């Protein structure tokens, strides 16, 4: 008689790690490791704008104020839209071998459905939680931005949760040209909500770890030990945009105005 064991999931807990460093770590673990990973980062150090792989600053950002206020802008390796993150943001990232989650096909909608179900466990009892047009919402207000990257036999699903946010920071972001239908022309402040109004911070982290633990055997790993898990060269596409790139974006915005 064979007993199936839950696949192993390495858990890395970070606090205040710069988002660029977190994304570099994730890209490395996705491409150069063969293990499953759950990374939780409790806030990042400074307000930072993070765009998806295909993001164009001239279309997505108020580039003038971004340059003036020296807000770092990152282009990440996953798809999806633009967020501005800071010390109030909570990050949860899940990197999985497709064979360790056999009910999930390595395609965006299947991975998203799985994550929606997982966070459904986390927010059980919290009124109005749902995955709505690929966003995590309470009712019709978004509180989490998520994105994915799928490689041959593995995928990552990562989320930035709006625990709290500074309304002034939202002013750096333009209304994107492609929005979900449920957004209904609302600006950022009318469209998003603060997770702290719905759940305690520590409660959310522990319930997330517990929900992941319902599907995997969890093992805590220290950041200092990561090198032994991820060896060799890998494609690195996450990067900080240069001042020159931002200035070019501002110039192209002025030309098309």
């Amino acid at each position, binding site marked *: 008689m064979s007993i199936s064991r839950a696949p192993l999931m390495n858990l890395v807990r970070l606090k205040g790690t710069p988002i660029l460093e977190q994304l570099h770590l994730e890209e490395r673990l996705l491409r150069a490791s063969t293990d499953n990973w759950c990374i939780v980062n409790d806030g990042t150090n400074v307000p930072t704008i993070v765009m998806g792989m*295909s993001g164009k600053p001239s279309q997505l950002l108020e580039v003038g104020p971004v340059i003036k206020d020296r807000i770092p802008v990152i282009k990440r390796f996953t798809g999806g839209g633009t967020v501005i993150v800071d010390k109030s943001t909570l990050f949860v990232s899940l990197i999985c071998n497709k064979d360790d989650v056999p009910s999930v096909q390595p395609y965006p909608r299947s*991975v998203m459905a799985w994550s929606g179900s997982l966070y459904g466990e986390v927010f059980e009892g919290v009124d109005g939680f749902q995955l709505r047009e690929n966003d995590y919402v309470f009712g019709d207000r978004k509180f989490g931005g998520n994105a994915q*990257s799928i490689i041959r036999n593995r995928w990552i699903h990562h989320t930035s949760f709006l625990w709290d946010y500074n309304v002034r920071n939202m002013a750096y972001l333009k209304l994107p040209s492609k929005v979900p239908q449920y957004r209904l022309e609302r600006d950022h402040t009318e469209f998003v909500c603060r997770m702290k109004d719905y759940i305690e911070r520590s409660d959310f982290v522990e319930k997330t770890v517990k929900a992941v633990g319902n599907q995997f055997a969890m093992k805590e790993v220290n950041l200092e030990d990561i090198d032994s898990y991820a060896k060799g060269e890998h494609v690195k596409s996450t990067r900080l945009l240069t001042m020159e790139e931002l200035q070019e974006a501002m110039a192209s915005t002025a030309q098309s105005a």
Partner: protein
Amino acid sequence: MAARFLWASRVASHLRISGAQRGFSSVVLKDLKYAESHEWVKINGNKATFGITDHAQDHLGDVVYVELPDLGRSVSQGESFGAVESVKATSDINSPISGTVVEVNEVLTESPGLVNTSPYEEGWIIKVELSDACEAQKLMDSDKYSKFCQEDYAKH
């Protein structure tokens, strides 16, 4: 979506493939070779054209961006050379065969949706000069790929 159905019906009719006979409805063309990661390749002498299959584009959803490799870059069988973005996800495109990139489909920069509406024709992604034509023997023909997709469909 309507354009895609029309295209698929025309191709299926031309190739006498009935989607209704299968458990899935993806189009598979007979004169191509296929990788398990759902890329197709059309070999013509020492050159080849790549793209992603109808099965892949259907599962990916609406493609909004295609990351193309640089001309002159080497690609290796089974390794990633680019990516597509759809539904908030980037998905690697893997090379079905090794070679050197000699042409990229720049139309995809402005019209990434061609990967969905015309995956085997206007949605081609790159052309390469082959480095080892024997690698094609490791790929599936249309019948094997159809069976592979059906088994994948049945699992889920």
